[in-house]
């Protein structure tokens, strides 16, 4: 009897999911935008502009709440446990969803706990060197590193360290990893000539003439550096940690709500304020549909799994 009931309920749900996204009267009340970082940073600044545009597009107040901690982990853990009624969503970099749960076994969420309404911008994830470095591409860097014997690398996150570990393993380079706190710590080390090479989330764009962008750490070439090869093009198979900024709802959110948000994001991507802020914080607008974003999250998470296996990473 119980099994029968279960089957019936499941069938009902399947029917519901198969129906085309119905029109929705969402939103009927204020909506919360979660930001997984402290107020004042790049994602936060952009999120606040987006909130303003969404308020106008959706006809309800969109309030920004900063819940910082553990590279968005605190915010994502919270979002996972929220009711999937469209009243709350997260705006942030996708790497917090694809990478963090794989390197940290304490985290309860995975990329499958959320549904994605689309992507808006992209961190310019890349490998950089000080402007006076004697190399311009990955081949040149490897030759330089071999000649020097051992290089110093500024590592601003676990992801940054993993990328360098893969490169070092493939080319047999010796590396001293210097941890830094965030992009600005990296900039200080690089500008004072204390490191040879570094990973950057795109902060080099704010220091014109001070950095060389050696390679893109994303699947495709970057908007700000179209002439720079990706690591994959340079011969490092599958080596990319994409970091578009996306809008994520808790799993189970009505597809009609997701579709409405997707449409609003499309409008936001051409809004003059959004264009202005993207220029000034050096993060180009790269609009992606909900379907494209979901696919990207899936692919990226799978690529990271392979990468971690390659270097024998054990989640702590």
């Amino acid at each position, binding site marked *: 009897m119980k099994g029968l009931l279960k089957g019936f309920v499941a069938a009902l749900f399947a029917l519901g999911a198969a129906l085309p996204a119905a029109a929705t009267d969402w939103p009927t009340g204020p909506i919360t935008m979660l930001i997984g970082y*402290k*107020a*004042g*940073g*790049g994602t936060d*600044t952009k999120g*606040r*502009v987006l909130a303003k545009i969404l308020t106008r597009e959706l006809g309800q107040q969109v309030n920004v709440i900063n*819940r*910082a*901690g*553990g*590279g968005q*982990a*605190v915010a994502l*853990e919270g979002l996972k446990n929220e009711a999937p009624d469209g009243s709350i969503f997260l705006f942030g970099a996708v790497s917090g969803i694809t990478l*963090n749960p794989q*390197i*940290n076994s*304490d*985290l309860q969420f995975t990329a499958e706990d959320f549904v994605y309404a689309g992507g808006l911008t992209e961190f310019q994830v890349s490998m950089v060197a000080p402007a006076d470095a004697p190399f311009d591409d990955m081949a040149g860097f490897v030759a330089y590193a071999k000649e020097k014997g*051992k290089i*110093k690398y500024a*590592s601003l*996150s*676990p992801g940054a*360290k993993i990328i360098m570990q893969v490169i070092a393993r493939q080319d047999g380079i010796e590396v*001293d*990893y*210097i*941890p*830094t*706190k965030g992009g*600005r*710590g990296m*900039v*200080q*080390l690089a*500008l*004072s000539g*204390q490191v040879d090479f570094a990973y950057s989330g795109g902060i080099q764009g*704010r*220091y*014109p003439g*001070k950095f060389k962008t050696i390679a893109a750490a994303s699947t495709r070439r970057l908007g700000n550096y179209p002439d720079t090869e990706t690591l994959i093009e340079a011969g490092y198979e599958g080596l990319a940690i994409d970091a578009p900024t996306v809008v994520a709802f808790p799993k189970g959110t009505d597809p009609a709500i997701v579709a409405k948000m997707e449409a609003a994001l499309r409008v936001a991507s051409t809004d003059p304020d959004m264009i202005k*802020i993207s*220029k*000034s*914080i*050096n993060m180009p607008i790269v609009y992606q549909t909900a379907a494209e974003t979901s696919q990207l999250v899936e692919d990226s998470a799978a690529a990271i799994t392979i990468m971690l296996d390659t270097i024998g990473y054990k989640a*702590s």
Partner: protein
Amino acid sequence: MESFLPVLEAAFAPGNLAWILFGVTLGYLVGALPGLGKGTATAVAIPLTFYLSPLAAIAFLVGIAKGSTAGSAVSAILLNTPGEPSSTPTAMAGYPLARAGKAQKALKMGLFASVIGDLFSTIVLILVAQELAEYALGIGPVELTGILAFSMVFIAGLSGRSMIRGLIAGLFGILVSCVGLEVETASPRLTFGLIELYDGLPLIPVAIGMLALSEMMIQMGQRRRLEQEADLLRGSGRREDRVVTLGDWRRSARAILRGCLIGTGVGILPGLGASVGSFLSYGAERRASGRGVDFEETGAIEGVAAAESADNAVVPASFVPLFAIGIPGSVIAAILIGAFTIQGITPGPLLFLENRDLILGVYMSMMAASLFLLLIGYFGQNVFARIVRISPALVMPVVVFLCCLGAYLQGGGVFGIGVMAVFGVIGFFAKKYDFSFVTFLIGFVIGPSFELSLRQTLGLVTEFSELMDHPVALVFGALAVFGVWRLTVLQRRQHEAMVKDRP
């Protein structure tokens, strides 16, 4: 020189002045609330500036930063709850004064010292930003490790009657600062599976718990006596308790001058932070006065002056590396980078070439903000100072409520209140058993920077001979070792003297 007039006109345009005044007032009010400091005030105001002109936007934010830095002395002195950790020494020397009926005197001295420190540092910024920046860049992780080690030893000299207990408290502070994701591989340390602990224990709830909540617990135990004292407080209308006398100035002049120098120096070096500045300055004055623990027991006007002048001097000085090389020297400076970039301006060497007028305008606005600070602070204090005349039975619940509010806002919601409660209990026993909560907080605040710069040093300096390239680090390292030796000798002598005195 011809181009200077339009700059002056822009800086002193009524619209711009109004924004500065608004910023200073807002900052002072926010700073006066326990637990809300300059970081919060400035960060929250950034979206407000999106539609302002670059000059007005930056002047407004700088006004908030200056106002809140000075404002946090108000709650430190009146309620023993610093608005932010860097006002902790102000609470230690100033709250006893308030309890002795000299709240207005302490508040005024705090304000004057703040304005002097702020003005001094602003002038240094204007005169030497470009030249100093090059040197600041040379201060890397290796040098910072040396300086931080020296600072810790120096501040450990504050540790109450027993050095052993002070060290225990300091090391406990460092241990507590280790909670959270480890910086290089993001492995969780001492988090017990709690995601909220991933970014470490939140600073403000810990500080509020240790200082204010524990103090409230102790006071509640002595309520009857305090009620009687409150009557005395109310009665103390003597003029010399309300104003800063010539004698006070004489006692504090040296402390203020030293505070200005220490604060400016700390601000220019990226990564040290305002807390190091105010604690160093306070510690130096306490040492120079030769009064020891009496400083915290009866209060000390020169202690307030030392802490506040240094605390406020850090803010403008931390713009030196920001304006000149684009590297923030403080939280405020880091937030300002965001504000600059919103306006399409890149802080760095090019700033002086491409946006010279803007920078000059900002300098003028900063000077104006210093003067507004004096006005707002002077008249605002009369309002705040009434707090001490209210019966403790009414003040205590309000303070506990404000503590909870600060912890909630800065500690990630209800979790922050929990952290505050736990450290309130720890602070209660620390005070009862004379474990220095000062060294605890210092360990807690400096711990993460010390760990990071030490680990960076271990990566950067792999051969012993490479250390020779860092003379600054070597000097400070040697001073730290010398400090430990000297403190030990002093303690032993005191101990022997005590034993001898015993019949």
